[in-house]
Every structure is written in structure tokens, then in C-alpha cells.
């Protein structure tokens, strides 16, 4: 989905390259990923001077939550991909259901995250405990913020899919929204091993 979709253009044998949404959204997506790259670099640098502490703190993280959340986000991305293709094929009803599925996965992620935060805070582990937990709470928190915005975007995508006649503009919006949602997914895919597994 993130890659260019190849579609034969009607009437000619040539393949037309289709960039999902519009070019501009990639300024935002790549820019935002650059900011996260900066976060990750800062984390790795700070970690390198206190490896022992970071490794010991990492042990206390509950990987089950991490794995569940990864699966939820991957599933939601799958829903979004299928939803966008369904909408493109003119099957708006199916698209709506798939987008609803994506929203439920996103909601599941949010609930799991809140439970995980609660568990940590219950053990008196806060962002002030040490450097590792500062990054743990801040990076997952900023990602959570992105997810919350993404949930709003999914609602708007759902509304666009419910229009009686899905316009080109509506379709472009849905594709832009899908691109954003995949970015939220991708950032977690990097964040997850970095916080939970890097040794």
C-alpha cells in the first residue's frame, strides 16, 4: 500500500504510477518520521552511556502488551489497506466495515496502552524513575498522541466512505488518511523492538 500502486491506464499498454493520496502528504509523513528518527537517535545515544541501567529497566516491561499491540496495529493496517481497495472498487459498504474494524483495533491498542501505563504507575515507575523510563513514557506517549489523531482521521475516512457518491477528492482524502495510519503503525514497529528488545 505504501508503495506506488501500478495500474494500467485505460486505452494504452503503459503502466501509470499511482501515488496514494497526493504528493504533499509525504512531506508530512517523511517529516514526522524524521522527527521520530531524531527521538530514536537520542534514545540510542543516551542508552549507550548507561547500557546496564537501560537493560535492567527493560526487563520490567511487559512484553505481552507490546506483542498484542503490535498485532493489533498490523491488523488495523490490513483493514485499512483492504478498506481503501474496496472503496476504490466502488464497494463502499465493505469499505465502511473494514474501516470500522481498523478503528476497533486502534481502540484496542489504546486500551492496552492505558492498562500498561497503569500497571507501571502502580509499581511506582514513572518518567522520573530513570532515563530509560523517561524515554519509555515519552516516546510511547508521543506515539499515543499520533494514534489518537489517527483515530480521528479514521472517523473522517469512515464518513468519506459513507458519502452517497464517493468523489475523487473523497478518495484522495481516504488515501492520505490511510498513509498517515500506516505511518502510525510503522513508527510502532520501530518503537516496539527499540524499547522492548534492544540489548
Amino acid at each position, binding site marked *: 500500500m505504501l508503495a506506488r500502486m501500478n495500474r494500467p491506464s485505460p486505452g494504452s499498454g503503459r503502466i501509470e504510477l499511482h501515488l496514494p493520496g*497526493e*504528493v*504533499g*502528504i*509525504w*512531506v*508530512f509523513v517523511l*517529516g*514526522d518520521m524524521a*522527527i521520530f528518527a*531524531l*527521538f530514536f537517535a*537520542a*534514545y540510542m545515544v*543516551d542508552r549507550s552511556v548507561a547500557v546496564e541501567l537501560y537493560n535492567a529497566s527493560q526487563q520490567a516491561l511487559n512484553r505481552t502488551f507490546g506483542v498484542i499491540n503490535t498485532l493489533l496495529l498490523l491488523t488495523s493496517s490490513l483493514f485499512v489497506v483492504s478498506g481503501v481497495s474496496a472503496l476504490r472498487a466502488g464497494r463502499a459498504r465493505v469499505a465502511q466495515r473494514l474501516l470500522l474494524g481498523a478503528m476497533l483495533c486502534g481502540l484496542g491498542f489504546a486500551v492496552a496502552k492505558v492498562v500498561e501505563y497503569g500497571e507501571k504507575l502502580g509499581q511506582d515507575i514513572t*518518567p522520573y524513575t530513570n*532515563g530509560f523510563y*523517561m*524515554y519509555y513514557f*515519552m516516546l510511547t506517549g*508521543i506515539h499515543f*498522541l499520533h494514534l489518537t489523531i489517527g483515530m480521528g482521521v479514521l472517523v473522517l475516512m469512515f464518513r468519506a466512505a459513507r458519502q452517497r457518491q464517493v468523489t475523487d477528492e473523497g478518495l484522495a482524502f481516504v488515501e492520505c488518511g490511510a498513509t498517515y495510519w500506516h505511518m502510525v503503525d510503522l513508527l510502532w514497529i520501530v518503537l516496539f523492538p527499540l524499547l522492548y528488545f534492544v540489548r
Partner: protein
Amino acid sequence: MSAVISKKLDGASEHSGCCAAAAPEYQESMRRRQLLCNWSGPFFVVFFFIGLVLFMGFVPPQSPLASSQQIADIYLADLTSIRIGIVLCSYSVALMATWGAALAARTLRTEREFPVYTYTQIACVGVGVMVAVFCFLTWAVAAFRPDDVHPDITRMLNDVGWFLFLFDVAPFMVWMVAVGLAILGNRSSHRLMPRWVGYFSLWCAVGEAPAVLILFFKDGAFAFNGLVGFWLPLVAFFLWIMVLSVVLHQEIQRDAVPQAMAGRD
């Protein structure tokens, strides 16, 4: 004479095609006025950094962990230079108003009837200038008599200055989002700016956001001398001003093309 011109203009602005009917002298004066205001953006950035970096020496910021005495010593060591830098910055930040006006005037054209994004920008830039002036006012008071007051007072004023510099990003974010939405939502017959600039503005707003984290940390990436607390918002904001200045300049110049041709007729 001027009454005749203005009457003509009122008529011209009625229909959306616009401008072609207006007097070339007026068009040229409007173009120059916009260019002048737009140039205040880059001027602001240049003088601001000359003041902040070269004279004040506040980049990178002091550590939030520094003791009161250490902060007071920084002021005492370069008092005159810091004072000159503060004055330079205090003057330059006011140019945000003229630059913001150049930007808002362009969006106004695309939302004549209900200029909500334009009003939002005007409100935010007004608050932004006030906050920025207060920031340097606070540092000015810190640099007023650091030899005579307890170092704790100097450090507190220094802290307040950094909080005014970084913590109050919200109005600036709203400003950027208003510009971004105005660009992306433009359905008028007027050009505004390329759509990527809209997404770029939204991204800059996101880059500004983590500055509020300086409240929670005194050390590391999220503190007011850190990568995320200081550098990211700083770069996002000034990159926004610079990139939009360039795009705005091009847009203002593009307006001039058909007019020059009209002038020749």
C-alpha cells in the same frame, strides 16, 4: 483622484476574477507592500539569531540543572553583550507581526466572506509577538542588576525567559495549523500556496508540540536545553518562517505577471 481609484477597486474586488481591472499603480504598490512585509520574516530570523547567538550566547541554552550562582555568573560575565543581544531580539520579534500580516492577507483573499483562518492567524500572531516580547523583557530584567540581587532571583528570571521562549508553543501551533488548513481547504478561485506547504505547516506544528515537555524534565532530550525540548521546536519554527517566506515571495511575484502585461496594453 484617490477616491476614483478606490471606487474602481471596490468594483474590481466584487467579482472573483479580480485585479485585472485595477489600476496598475495600485497593483504595483500592493505588490511592493506585500514584498516588504514578507521580507520582514527573513529579517526577523537573521536579527533574532544575531542577538540570541552572537550577543547573548544563549544557544545552546544553559542547563536547567545549573546552580543559581552559575546562572548569575553567566549574566555577570557578559552583561553588556547580553543586554545588546536582548535589545536586538526584542526589536526583531515585532517583525513577526508584519510577516504574519503578509501571510494572513493572502489567505484572506481565499475566504472573503468568512475569514476564520485569517482571524485565527491574526489572533495567534498578536499573542505570539506579545509572548516573544515578554520573553526578552524577562531576560532584560534578569540582566538589569544581577550584581545586586540574590542569584536565585536571576536564575528564576532566566527560567521564566526560557519558559516564555519554549513552553508557550500552543498559539504558534494554532497559527501554523490555521495556515495549513487554509491552504489545504482552499476551494476559492484564487491561488494560495502549493498544497505541500499546507502539509509542511501541519508538520511544523507537530514539531513545535514537544516543547511543553520542558516542564517535566531538567535533564536529557526533553529538558529546555535538549534535542526535543529546545532544538526541534526551534528548527521547526524558523524553518517554517523561512520556507513560507520563500513560497510567499514567489506567490506575490506570480501575481505581478499578468498585471505587468495588463500595464503594457
